[in-house]
């Protein structure tokens, strides 16, 4: 049963936990849920645009030059997203800071653009890319939720009409475990999530072997 390309990106081949790609910006940005969502959206946007452009440009560009061209392509797209965010969401852009620009060298995006550019059907590429992007955002959201709830006792989203944007958790927000929202907490949370993902994957593989065997 071949899961749809989109869903494969979400769980089974969840980029962040299983392949640990694009780990660099994820951790530093995962102390607030709004920042995680912002970066996740950025990754999905850049990924879709880059894969589409690469898929179309591929026949035109000589083989040897392709890595360099993809690098420039992704960097240009990241700058575009950066400018757009500075225009419409300045507060979020300010919070993300350098880590949004770092998407230009993100292993996940560059790796995917390289891999997907060779695929034949454009729509399948886009669905795979969207799946991987959504998987990345989901995993990042998971880390951000754990870190922000424990580390600052709140869930910051985007202000919308009367809703101020910050959900305060009654008990925890008075005495949150601030260390969890520091760098140490990020590495710890990711460590346990990777262990969990590894155990789930091993469990699923054992289940498949048993059913296949």
């Amino acid at each position, binding site marked *: 049963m071949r899961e749809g390309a989109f869903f494969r990106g979400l769980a089974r081949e969840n980029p962040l936990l299983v392949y*640990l*790609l694009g*780990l*660099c910006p994820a*951790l*530093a940005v995962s102390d607030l849920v709004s920042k995680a969502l912002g970066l996740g959206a950025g990754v999905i946007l850049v990924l879709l645009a880059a894969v589409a452009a690469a898929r179309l440009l591929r026949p035109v560009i000589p083989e040897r030059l392709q890595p*360099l061209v993809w*690098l*420039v392509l992704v*960097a*240009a797209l*990241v*700058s575009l997203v*950066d*400018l757009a965010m500075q225009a419409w969401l300045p507060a979020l852009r300010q919070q993300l800071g*350098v*880590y949004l*620009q*770092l998407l*230009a*060298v*993100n*292993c996940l995006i*560059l790796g995917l653009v390289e891999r997907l550019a060779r695929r034949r059907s454009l729509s399948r590429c886009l669905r795979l890319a969207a799946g991987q992007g959504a998987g990345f955002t989901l995993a990042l959201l998971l880390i951000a939720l754990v870190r922000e709830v424990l580390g600052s006792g709140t869930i910051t989203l985007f202000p919308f009409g009367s809703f101020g944007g910050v959900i305060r958790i009654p008990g925890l927000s008075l005495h949150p475990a601030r*260390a969890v929202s*520091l*760098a*140490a*907490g*990020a*590495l*710890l949370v*990711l*460590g*346990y999530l*990777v*262990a*969990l993902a*590894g*155990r789930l994957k091993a469990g699923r593989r054992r289940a498949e072997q048993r059913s296949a065997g």
Partner: protein
Amino acid sequence: MSFVGIIFTAVFVNNVVLYQLLGLCPLFAAAGSRRSALGLGLAVSLVLALTAPAVWALQHLVLVPLRLAYLQTLAFVLLIAGIFQLVRLAGLVLARLAPAAHRALGVHLPLAAVNCVVLGSCLLLVPGLSSAGRSAIAGLSAGAGFLIASVVLASIQARLRSEWVPEAMRGLPITLVSAALMALGFLAFDRVLLAKLFG
């Protein structure tokens, strides 16, 4: 800020790995052995020492005067890619001249994943510095900080390989937890300590 202040900040207070959380992909890839961790650390320090002043010059002499600051990301990426090629060529030359040095250093030069820490450090360091010389020192110190974290983590990883670590934690998870505990220790180096020590 004095030179020593810059060095102390870049190595301990704003440690590239344990404070900025940059360069985690190459770090965990090289945590396998102390030798590869040392090689990676030296390679990153060398590359950073070269790119930081170049990036500073590009920023302050080209982008800002011509009001092209919005091209910063693109410009930096291209510059770093260029320097990368230079360093790789130097690596090939080094291979012929001093194979031993190359083996310790060279194996990591083409590592594309390194540019996370290179671009990240440049973007974080450059705005705060006032001269190309200071950027070179800051770049080198950021690389040294990476080297320290990388070698210490690799030595811990080497010890854990001979211990009965629980099944689910073996490999990357236990390295991540160890890095987390190291980051906890590095909290000792904070802004107050920096201010009191170096003014």
